[in-house]
């Protein structure tokens, strides 16, 4: 019902969508977070992600359990990648299958919003002239 993965290899959208298939599902919402080529107009070379792994998995599991409880989700998948990612590569995939579509959207957006607030994963943007830990400073 819940599948949480923290991977160092490429994430597979098709696999995530397959994992949330369910005969009682009427709507599946999927979020795919990819590496953007610019930040505030400045060209980005790549991103580097690191995680405090056991707690990152535990916090993603909590998010998925909340979704099952609150939105009666049938299936929840959260796959997050760590390591060095190039432009266009996928950093995170969240897929939620529910009987009705409104719940799928609400739950999927809750998942990515909460992941960005609570899951101990950090990304560094690598620019031509240096690097910055994202969101570290006010």
């Amino acid at each position, binding site marked *: 019902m819940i599948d949480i993965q923290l991977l160092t290899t490429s994430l597979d959208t098709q696999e995530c969508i397959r994992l949330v298939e369910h005969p009682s599902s009427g709507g599946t919402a999927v979020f795919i977070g990819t590496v953007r080529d610019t930040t505030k107009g400045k060209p980005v070379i790549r991103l580097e992600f690191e995680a*405090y792994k056991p707690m990152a998995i535990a916090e993603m599991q909590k998010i998925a359990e909340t979704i099952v409880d609150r939105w009666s989700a049938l299936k929840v998948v959260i796959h997050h990648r760590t390591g060095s990612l190039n432009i266009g590569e996928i950093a*995170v995939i969240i897929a939620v299958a529910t009987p009705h579509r409104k719940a799928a959207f609400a739950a999927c957006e809750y998942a990515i919003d909460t*992941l960005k607030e609570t*899951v101990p994963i*950090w990304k560094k943007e690598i620019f031509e002239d240096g690097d910055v830990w994202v969101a570290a*400073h006010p």
Partner: protein
Amino acid sequence: MMKQGKGRAALSSQPETKKFRLLAFGIARDIVGGNEVDIELTDAYSVGALKTALQENYPDFKRLKSLAIAVNETYRTDEHILNTNDEIVIIPPVSGG
């Protein structure tokens, strides 16, 4: 206060120093200069005391948007009391996704 054992009773009015080993990730790793750092706390062994010590030893922590401490893979508030064998992790502002 609970009655102390004989060995500790002799020290009860003296401050005791304990050493805590912390793991550091993201910008915290850059600030402390490594994956791990030892912090000594005297008398008060709370998460709040730990944060204060970190900010005193490494003023760059004061410039962060937030500073959290995880103990045994769970976020803990300032009141939480640390044990020296806990897995303690410095959590600078997260930015996954």
